[in-house]
């Protein structure tokens, strides 16, 4: 990467860091997220434009606040005659004035803002987009692209969600101890959903979103050092991310885990993941993310050392299934079971999912079922299941892979 590119990335990171902290600080006092974003929006855009060339200022928070305050004053002058909204603008200006006085040491309220964004009163699908926008300053257009919905629709939904924060009296606070684990789950789920968008999609915006989610994961783990699940989720993302370069062959075709070239894995990132998982398991009972990270750790160990870790993976999935009652986990447990007890045992387990209507259009279910049937020598049924998996695929690399699986089942 060029020097300019490197400088731009560093500047962007620092600007995001400051931006999120300032939005959180201002919004926590007024409960007006949109107002805080408006106040800082132009300053943030200016930072992204100027810092890569001029260098990052010594006190980025103070820089952003100074620019925001100037813009605020301009806006105030322009609107002097307009009574409507005047009070609000004055309030925002006061906020910025106050904050500017303490710019050297802005308290970090980002955690509280994330809890507000992932509050039960906010619809689950909007929690991740809200966090991406308020903490990272991503635009509705970028978020919409990753979430595969029209930009205008995403924009409207974000506005509605922010209005809801203000009007539904959603608190800007880190929940009390008893409430924390449940509420934290919602925050972690939102960040992980953002990561999932970046992982599943092959589009241009997607890997970037995965990076943003990991950044948020690091932020959460650092702000909540005593919460093992925060570390567990970060570890899970890093295990997955470390294998990204091996997920496609040079022609872009999908490469399953068992066939990946482990020399392409990011060893440094895997070490970080191991370390986080170790810390997490010393920190208390294992939740969903720790268990999933442990499963990834076992997969990595199997490929790196050749050790048979399938029994451990099966045990972890069994534990996870009890915890989540998720059909997706049952599906994965069936795949692990096929490695320890053979494909027929796994198919018997999969049959228990059959009545679940959600499986009808769930691509991984048909892909797994097809592979297990093929391994069991039930060629006709395998072809049918893999054909459904092909019809439900949205990714070209996966589509090509499945076409390759179906062809030998069709001939002869």
């Amino acid at each position: 990467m060029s020097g300019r590119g490197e400088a731009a990335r560093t500047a962007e990171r620092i600007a995001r860091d400051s931006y999120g902290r300032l939005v959180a600080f201002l919004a926590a006092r007024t409960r007006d997220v949109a107002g805080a974003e408006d106040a800082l929006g132009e300053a943030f855009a200016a930072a992204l434009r100027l810092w890569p060339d001029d260098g990052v200022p010594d006190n980025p928070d103070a820089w952003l606040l100074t620019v925001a305050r100037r813009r605020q004053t301009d806006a105030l002058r322009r609107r002097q005659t307009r009574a409507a909204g005047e009070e609000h603008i004055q309030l925002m200006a006061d906020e910025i004035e106050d904050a500017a006085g303490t710019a050297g040491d802005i308290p970090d309220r980002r955690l509280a803002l994330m809890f507000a964004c992932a509050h039960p009163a906010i619809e689950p699908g909007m929690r991740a987009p809200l966090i991406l926008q308020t903490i990272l300053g991503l635009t509705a257009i970028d978020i919409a692209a990753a979430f595969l919905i029209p930009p205008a629709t995403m924009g409207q939904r974000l506005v509605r969600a922010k209005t809801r924060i203000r009007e539904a009296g959603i608190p800007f606070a880190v929940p009390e101890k008893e409430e924390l684990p449940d509420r934290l789950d919602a925050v972690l789920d939102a960040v992980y959903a953002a990561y999932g968008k970046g992982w599943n999609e092959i589009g241009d915006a997607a890997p970037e979103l995965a990076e943003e989610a990991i950044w948020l994961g690091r932020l959460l783990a650092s702000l909540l050092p005593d919460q093992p699940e925060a570390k567990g989720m970060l570890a899970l993302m890093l295990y997955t991310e470390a294998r990204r370069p091996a997920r496609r062959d040079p022609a872009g075709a999908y490469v399953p885990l068992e066939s990946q070239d482990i020399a392409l894995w990011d060893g440094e990132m895997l070490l970080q993941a191991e370390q986080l998982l170790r810390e997490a398991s010393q920190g208390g009972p294992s939740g969903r993310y720790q268990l999933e990270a442990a499963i990834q750790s076992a997969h990595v160990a199997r490929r790196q050392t050749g050790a048979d870790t399938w029994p451990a993976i099966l045990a972890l999935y069994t534990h996870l299934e009890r915890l989540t009652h998720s059909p997706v986990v049952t599906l994965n447990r069936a795949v692990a079971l096929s490695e320890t007890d053979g494909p027929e045992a796994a198919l018997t387990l999969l049959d228990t999912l059959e009545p679940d209507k959600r499986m009808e259009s769930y691509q991984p279910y048909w892909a797994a079922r097809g592979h297990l049937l093929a391994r069991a020598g039930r060629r006709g049924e395998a072809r049918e299941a893999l054909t459904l998996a092909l019809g439900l695929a949205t990714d070209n690399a996966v589509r090509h892979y499945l076409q390759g699986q179906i062809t030998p089942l069709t001939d002869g």
Partner: protein
Amino acid sequence: MRFMMLIHHNEAELAAAEQKQLWADYAAFNEALGKAEGAESGIRLEPAGKATTVRTTGDKTDVLDGPYADTKEQFAGYFFIDVPTLEDAVVWAKRCPSSRYGSIEIRPVHVPQAGSWK
């Protein structure tokens, strides 16, 4: 929500595709669609060159050869799905092989309100 999925093809691009694989993919897509609750398999239209367009202005009726609009992408067929959200509809559009050779327009089916048509 019930959505009509309107398929628009770039006919040149479609013709250039590897036909055997394309129609195998389409067969797989139709299998999947057939299994989805509330979905209705599609109707494929003959190419836009076979279209006839009728328009009445006042007392005058024009009958013209060819499609309604002479654009690069032409209306080529449709299917219905019944899914909870627009996001789910977008996933179905991505699954449809035609999305790679043109575009899929997603239109919610109008549900008339009691006593009015608007």
